[in-house]
Each structure stands twice: as C-alpha cells, then as structure tokens.
C-alpha cells in the first residue's frame, strides 16, 4: 500500500487520534486517582474527574484538529526541504559528470534554440496579420491569361469598380523610383501613383494635414502629394508647415499630408500622388497598374474572383480584339506577400523539426544510459530504506535540472540565431530584421524538450521501483538487454534523421554549386553601376536628356582607370525588361488587327555597354559613335531572338520595328547590325527572353531613366566620387544611385545561399548528435560485455579483432538507421524540388555521399569506445562480476 506523506507517522509520534485519546485519558485517570486518595469512592472519583474536565468530546475534537493541521504543514515544509536537497544533489552529480551534463544540456539547447528561432521567424513572416485594420479583407485583383496572370488594365479596372458587387473599395497603383526636387538636395525617391480609393481601402490616416480627396483624383487637378513619415523627417526635418513644402518630380506638387508613421505601402513608398493626374491608357490590354481591393464582409476571394470574371466576360464581349483576359484572379494579399518565402520557410521549419526530434532522441538515449549506469546506486539506496517515492523524486529532480538548464541555454541560442540570421538573410526575407522571439512559440518548444527529458529521465527510475532491488544489485541481465534494444533503436532513429537532413542539404549544396557555375554571359567583376533619371520638369526636351548622357559618359570614360562605360535600360539580373510587340519585315502578323509578328523584350544600350559588361557580340558589330539620331536606325538582337526569328539565316541586315500595343506611334524600320550573347535577365536560373537593343540616341523617348555600367580597376568609393564629380559638372541637380554588379550577382543567389547555410548547419548538428549517440551506444555495449570481452581476450583473441567485432556490432544499428533515412529522404526531398536547380531530388551523388559520410562518421565515433574495450584486463574483467 502506498501512503501519501501526510499519512505517514513522524518518528516518536503517535497517530493523532491515539495521541489525543491517550493524553486526555491519562489526565482523567490521574485526577480520579488523586480524588480516591482524598477519600472518594472509585466510581464517584471518576465521575467528578470527568465533570471538572468539562466537555471531553469538544476538547478532543479541538485537539485533533489543531494537531493534524500542524503535522500537515510541517510535512509540507519537510517535503520542500527534500526538494531543495534533491536539487543540490542533482547539481553536484552534474558537476561530477560534466561530459554527461554537457551532452544532455547542449543537445536540448540545440533542439530548443533552432526550433524557437525558426518558429519565431515563421510566425513573423507567415502568420502575423498585415499591419492594416481587417487586413484579411485585402485582395490582389489581376487578370488571368493563357500564360499566367497580369495587372488589370486601367479601363477594365474602372468598369470592374463600377460593376462588381464584391468590394468595399477597389484601387489601382504603381510605383516608380525617380528624382524628386524640392528638398534640400535632389533625391531619388519612390513615388506611388494611387487611385482615389487607395487610402480609404487600406484604412490608413495621416498624422498631419489631410489625405487626398475625390477632387484631387481628377485628370488636370492641381497636383498634391502625401509623403511618408520617414521622408518628412529625413528631407523636411519634420517641418509642420506643410504649406511651405513643395515637391517637383513629374509634377509640381503641393504636400498636403504626412502619412502615419511606418506606412510605406506599396514598395516602401516615400510619396503618394493621384494616379489620375496622368492620362491613363484606354487600351484594355495595357497591363500597367496593380489592383488591390477590400472585400465586403462575408465575401470570399473565390466569390470575388467569380464576380470579377463575370464583369470581365461582359467587357470582353464588346471590347473585341483589344482584350486578352480569360478570367480574373483574386488572391489574399497576405498570402501573396508571404508567397516567395513560404517554401524556404516551411522547409526550414521541417528541418528544424527534424533537428528537435534528433535532439530529443539523443537526450532520451543519454538519459537512458545515465539511468542504467546509476541502476545499482539507486538500488542500493532503495535497499537501505529510501522510499521509492523518494528515489523517483530524486530522478525527476535531476531530469528537471537538465531540462531547465538546457531550455535556458536554448533560448539564448535562439536569440543569437535570430540575430545571426538577420545578418545573412536575403532581401526577400527582410522581415527577419524584425523577427523577435515569440513567447508561445518558445513555450511550445521548451515544453517538448522538457517532456522528453522528464519522460526518459523517469523511465529508468520507474523501472527501478518496479524491479526487485536484490536482482538489480546482483546485476540483472534481462532488464539491461531490453534497455540496450531501446537504445539501439533510438540511435538508429538519430542516424535516420541525420541522413534525411544531410541529403536535403546535400541536394541544396549541389544546386547552389550548379547555380553559381551558370555561365552568366557577362563578367560582373569590376563593374559599377549608377542609375539616373531626367524628369520632364527639368528636361522638357528629350534631346537634352541624350546630351546629358553623352556628356556624362564622355567624362566618365575620361576618368583614369575606367576601361569602358555605357548605359542601358535594365542591367542584367536586375529585372526582366519591358516587353512589347515587334513587327519583323516579311513575316505574317499574329492578328489581322495588329501588325505584330511577335513579342520581344526591349532594351537600350550605347557604345561601351556590351564592352563594359564583357558581353560578346557574336556576329556583326557593336554600336558605334557613328550611330546618331540622324543616321539610319540600327538594332542589336540577342541569340534567343535571332534564333526565333531567323533560324538558320544570317540575321545581319534583316529589318524589324516596334509595333506598339496602342498603335500610338509607329517606329521606322531598324536594321539588325549585330547579335549579342544572351545574358540572364530576372534570375540566373531562368533563360533570358528574346531581347533587342536600340541605342538610346535613336529611341530617345526611353532615354530618361537609364543605368550606366562602368568597368574600372578603381576602388568602388574612389570611382563613385569621380563619377559624382563628372555628373556635377554636367548637372548637379541629378542624383545618382550607385551599385555594383558583383553585389547584384550575389543577391541573385542570396536565398539559395541562406538556405544552404541554415540547412547545412542543421544537418551538421544532426550529424554531430548522431555521432554522440553512436559513441554512447558503443561505450554502453562495451561496458555490458566487459566479461565476455575479457574471456575472449583471455582465450587468445587479438585485441584488434575484438575491437572490430564491437564496432561491426554497432554498424548494424547505423546501417539500419541509414536505410530508414534514405527511404525517408526519398519521400522528403520531393518537397525540395522547387528549390533545386539541375539536380534531381534523387541525385545519386548526394545520396551516395551522405551514406559514405554517415558510415565513416559512425566508424570514427565507435572507434574510441571499442578501442577502450580491447584494453580490458581479462582477469579483472572476469572477477568484476
């Protein structure tokens, strides 16, 4: 029968009832005896004694009550004292076996730390709501085309806004980065052009002044602007007199309001101006601005998509050929914003989950080993009278100490990991800079680890209290071999998890290597870029803009150390260039309504552009100074365009022209003078589009926003100073934004590098944990088989052979783990597919490499304990038991 502490008697004490009854009884008897001595009869004396005592029953009830209460509270105090001494004992034990303490605590810390960090990140990126009231109602509205989705043309947007029943508000916007004057110095800022419902839709307000009104959102209205809090503070020193704040960009604008602090939607906007100030294209195929809507209460994105599709169908019925949508696409803004980061983050979550599992398994086996080693000690303690409850509590306390220390270290690690990740995070995961440890997340992870520690710390203890202590003290074999089996299984699981993580990161590393080996088609090293723009306000005549670029390029080329310099519209890897219809001479038009014979990505270039980036002209010639605004128009095409339009023919001398979407302007025919090597446009893993290059001198209407590329041997800072000086000599009011091509190239693989780094780290840790596990199980099996090994050596077995035998035994467990891991990886790596590049999810090199790595690691990890086994002195070993 088990008793709770309250029921157990203290030493030298009687049970409460007995204690009270006997004491009162004693009093009555002594009193009666005294009376008898005084001459009373025995019966009278008894009655008198009871009378003068008073209410016997009441007194004894009161006594019982007082004493039971006192005893209970004293026992509680003693129990607490016991816990304190358990704690002290546990800490002393940990200090005495620092290796065990370190392994257990470090294991827990790794699991808890990695998980807390990754969970916090995911919470910040994927789960946290948008920073707008009822952000869940905000949806992106786009048109669906045969090849994908694209922006809603303004004309269609106007009709949908009028006819759709799904939205509280629907707004369109686009942003551009351009020069703004009016602050102290000319600056490049991001301007967002927004329709009238933009601010009400986001339910944002101003901290000063006013938002735009319906009157502001009219073509021909007086231009007004709302500026961001950051822009206001950085460039206007938070001047509260808005009347005095004017901005000159594409318009001459009066500042009327300052947005709420932190508001910078879309694209980190600095300035918002009414989109209606610009004349909007009437074409129903001009996909210029993005549309965002706020759904009415109770309307789902799917229902809205249905609704918008219906409106679009009606438009299509009357629009004729100037219409290319096959339906609508309405998607949650929240989900879309997380979109690109979703896969990598979920993958990291999976990986850190596997790591936590590995850590818990490792901890379990470490604690089991510990329990086994202490079996005899605990059995002795039980035998000399320690209560089983007391022993179990002791083990519980020890597990708890390990768990708490491990979790504490884990939290420190998590914080460090978050900060470290923020340093190496790619720009897409910019939210990392703001990710913070999240309490519920930390709680969950810590609870998992704690549960593991307690459960596996407990198991051996519970078994001891269940097993016959005498048997244990003699050194039982049955229980320990069963425990050996559990342990082997745990190690196999660790190995399997490590294999999965290693194969996953192996595949990513192979992809990364492939991606970085992709032939860019240009040489980024030593190339500095600078972007300028020349708004109509300052450069009303585009010929002035051309003269600006001519003059600046001339001065830059003259800087000592500059080898080549040119300009382009969009440099490689920065973005996909704009796409438009082209008309190739002699080819049939795609549609009778348009002259287009196909599409192409248009670019601008100049003398020195291809040279500065090291892009080869594979046929024909480069642009020359003789290609001027007045000379016959010429064009250079890339290999893709040449192959599509003139397969098997010489493209040089062929003619084509831009056909234009709106039939607004028809360009003159241009003659192909050269074929340039393909260079990647948006990402290095997607093939470049069919691209053609005009010289900016001959297509001047696009010459206002250009990026220059400069190849030089000068240090970046020195070159930037020299370029700035050159620009100032031409026009000090033109700001320039500098960058380098190596940085662009590096950021194009930033997400990949980040994933490789983290997953590699996790896999490395998992491998380490598995190695520790293998070491432990081999050491354990050597300890268990001391006697057997002793006999073998006594009978003449070579120590080396015995060591090999022990190691081979361990390899069985490892190979079983590897087999499970490979099977698991075959399933798991399929999830990686979207992140792989020119590597299949079943890449034999990654799988084979990991198997070899694991087997070698296991062999090394089991070597030391196995060697120790062979140094056993046979006589001592046999005597020991």
């Amino acid at each position: 029968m088990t008793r709770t502490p309250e029921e157990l008697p203290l030493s030298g004490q009687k049970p409460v009832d007995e204690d009270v009854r006997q004491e009162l009884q004693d009093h009555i008897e002594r009193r009666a005896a005294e009376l008898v001595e005084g001459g009373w009869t025995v019966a009278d004396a008894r009655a008198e004694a009871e009378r003068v005592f008073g209410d016997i029953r009441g007194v004894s009830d009161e006594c019982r009550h007082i004493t039971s209460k006192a005893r209970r509270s004293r026992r509680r105090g003693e129990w607490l004292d016991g816990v304190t001494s358990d704690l002290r004992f546990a800490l002393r034990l940990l200090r005495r076996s620092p290796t065990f303490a370190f392994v257990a605590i470090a294991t827990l810390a790794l699991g808890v730390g990695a998980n807390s960090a990754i969970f916090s990140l995911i919470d910040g990126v994927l789960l946290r709501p948008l920073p707008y009231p009822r952000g869940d109602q905000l949806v992106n509205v786009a048109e669906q085309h045969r090849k994908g989705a694209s922006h809603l043309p303004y004309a269609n947007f106007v009709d949908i806004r009028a006819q759709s029943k799904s939205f509280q508000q629907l707004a369109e916007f686009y942003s551009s980065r351009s020069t703004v004057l009016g602050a102290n110095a000319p600056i490049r800022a991001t301007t967002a052009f927004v329709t009238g419902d933009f601010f009400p839709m986001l339910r944002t307000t101003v901290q000063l002044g006013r938002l735009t009104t319906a009157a502001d959102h009219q073509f021909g209205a007086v231009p007004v602007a709302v500026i961001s809090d950051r822009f206001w503070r950085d460039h206007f020193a938070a001047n509260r007199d808005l009347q005095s704040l004017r901005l000159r960009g594409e318009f001459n604008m009066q500042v009327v309001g300052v947005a709420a602090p932190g508001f910078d939607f879309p694209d980190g906007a600095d300035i918002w101006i009414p989109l209606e100030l610009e004349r909007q294209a009437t074409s129903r195929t001009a996909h210029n601005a993005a549309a965002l809507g706020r759904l009415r209460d109770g309307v789902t994105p799917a229902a809205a998509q249905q609704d918008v599709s219906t409106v679009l169908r009606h438009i299509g019925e009357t629009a004729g050929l100037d219409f290319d949508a096959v339906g609508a696409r309405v998607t949650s803004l929240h989900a879309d914003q997380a979109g690109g980061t979703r896969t990598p983050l979920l993958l990291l979550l999976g990986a850190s989950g596997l790591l936590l599992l590995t850590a818990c398994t490792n901890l379990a086996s470490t604690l089991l080993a510990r329990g086994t080693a202490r079996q005899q000690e605990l059995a002795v303690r039980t035998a000399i009278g320690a209560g089983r409850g007391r022993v179990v509590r002791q083990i519980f306390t020890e597990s708890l100490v390990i768990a708490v220390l491990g979790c504490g270290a884990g939290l420190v690690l998590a914080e460090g990991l978050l900060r470290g990740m923020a340093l190496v995070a790619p720009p897409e995961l910019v939210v990392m800079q703001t990710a913070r440890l999240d309490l519920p997340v930390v709680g969950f992870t810590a609870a998992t680890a704690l549960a593991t520690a307690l459960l596996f710390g407990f198991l051996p203890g519970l078994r001891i209290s269940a097993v016959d202590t005498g048997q244990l003290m003699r050194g039982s074999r049955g229980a320990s071999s069963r425990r050996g089996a559990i342990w082997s299984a745990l190690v196999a699981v660790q190995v399997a998890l490590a294999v999965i993580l290693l194969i996953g990161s192996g595949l990513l590393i192979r992809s990364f290597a492939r991606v970085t080996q992709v032939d860019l088609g240009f040489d980024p090293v030593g190339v500095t870029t600078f972007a300028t723009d020349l708004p109509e306000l300052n450069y009303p005549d585009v010929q002035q803009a051309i003269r600006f670029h001519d003059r600046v390029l001339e001065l830059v080329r003259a800087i000592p150390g500059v080898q080549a310099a040119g300009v382009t519209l969009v440099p490689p890897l920065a973005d996909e260039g704009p796409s438009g219809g082209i008309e190739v001479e002699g080819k049939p038009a795609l549609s009778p309504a348009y002259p287009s014979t196909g599409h192409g990505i248009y670019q601008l270039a100049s003398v020195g552009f291809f040279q500065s980036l090291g892009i080869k002209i594979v046929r024909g010639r480069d642009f020359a100074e003789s290609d001027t605004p007045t000379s016959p128009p010429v064009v250079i095409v890339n290999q893709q365009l040449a192959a599509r339009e003139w397969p098997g023919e010489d493209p040089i001398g062929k003619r084509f022209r831009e056909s234009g979407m709106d039939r607004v302007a028809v360009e003159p025919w241009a003659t192909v003078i050269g074929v340039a090597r393909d260079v990647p446009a948006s990402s290095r893993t997607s093939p470049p589009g069919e691209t053609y290059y005009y010289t900016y001198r001959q297509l001047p209407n696009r010459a206002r926003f250009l990026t220059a590329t400069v190849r030089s041997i000068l240090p970046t800072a020195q070159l930037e100073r020299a370029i700035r000086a050159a620009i100032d000599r031409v026009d000090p009011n033109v700001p320039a934004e500098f960058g380098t091509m190596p940085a662009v190239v590096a950021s194009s693989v930033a997400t990949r590098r980040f994933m490789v780094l983290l997953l590699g780290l996790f896999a490395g840790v998992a491998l380490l944990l598995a190695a520790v596990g293998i070491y432990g199980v081999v050491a354990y099996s050597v300890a268990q088989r001391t006697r057997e090994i002793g006999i073998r050596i006594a009978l003449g077995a070579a120590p080396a052979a015995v060591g090999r035998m022990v190691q081979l035994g361990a390899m069985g467990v490892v190979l079983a783990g590897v087999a499970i891991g490979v099977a698991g990886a075959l399933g798991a790596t399929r999830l990686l597919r979207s992140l792989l590049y020119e590597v299949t999810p079943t890449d034999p090199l990654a799988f084979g490499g990991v198997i070899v790595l694991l087997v070698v690691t296991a062999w090394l990890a089991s070597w030391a304990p196995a060697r120790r086994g062979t140094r056993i002195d046979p006589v001592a070993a046999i005597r020991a038991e």
Partner: protein
Amino acid sequence: MPAAPMALVKGTLDILILRTLAWGPTHGYAISRWIREMTRDDLQVEEGALYPALRRLEERELVESAWKRTETGREAKVYHLTAAGRRQLQRDLDGWTRYVTAMTRVLQARPSGAIG
C-alpha cells in the same frame, strides 16, 4: 467568605502554561494541578481547556512534546519549553507586569486637581 472564582483573562492561560514548563518538562495533568494549586481556586480554569492551549503552543513551536514513561511506569505525554517558548515567556512576563503595574496605578490613584 471567599469571592466567587473569576474567569481567566483571555490569553493568560498560555502564560501560566509557559511559566509552569519553565521549571522543567512535565505532563498535562501536572501543569493542570500546579495551576489549580497556585491560584487557590481564585481562578476558574476548566481543566479540559488546558489541552487545546498546549497543542496551539506546540503548533507555534513554543513547546514540544514526546510520549515518555514516567516514574510510576505509566506512559505520559511530556511537554518541554523550546528556546522560542522561553523567549516568548520572557516577553509575556514583561508585558504582564507592565500591564498590572499600569492598571494598579490607575485604580489606586486619587483624583488631584480638576478631573471633571
């Protein structure tokens, strides 16, 4: 003719018990008899009231108890003062003396000057 016995002032039983135990460990009955004899029946103490009081003192760790075999061979629950009990007795005695002195002074004073 002796006056009718007075009821014990609340809290004073504790002082009497501690005072008794100050002479040495003893059992409940002996304490009861000693109080009875010393107060010469001027104080009316129901004998049973002693035991809850003893147990409360024990709860406050002013006294401790153990079952012991006495000189007559009977088993008796013997109480003794703890160090804390001894200190408490000293405080109580000081307090009591001050209280009695003050009360006596007031009760025996004659009005001098204008009191009303």
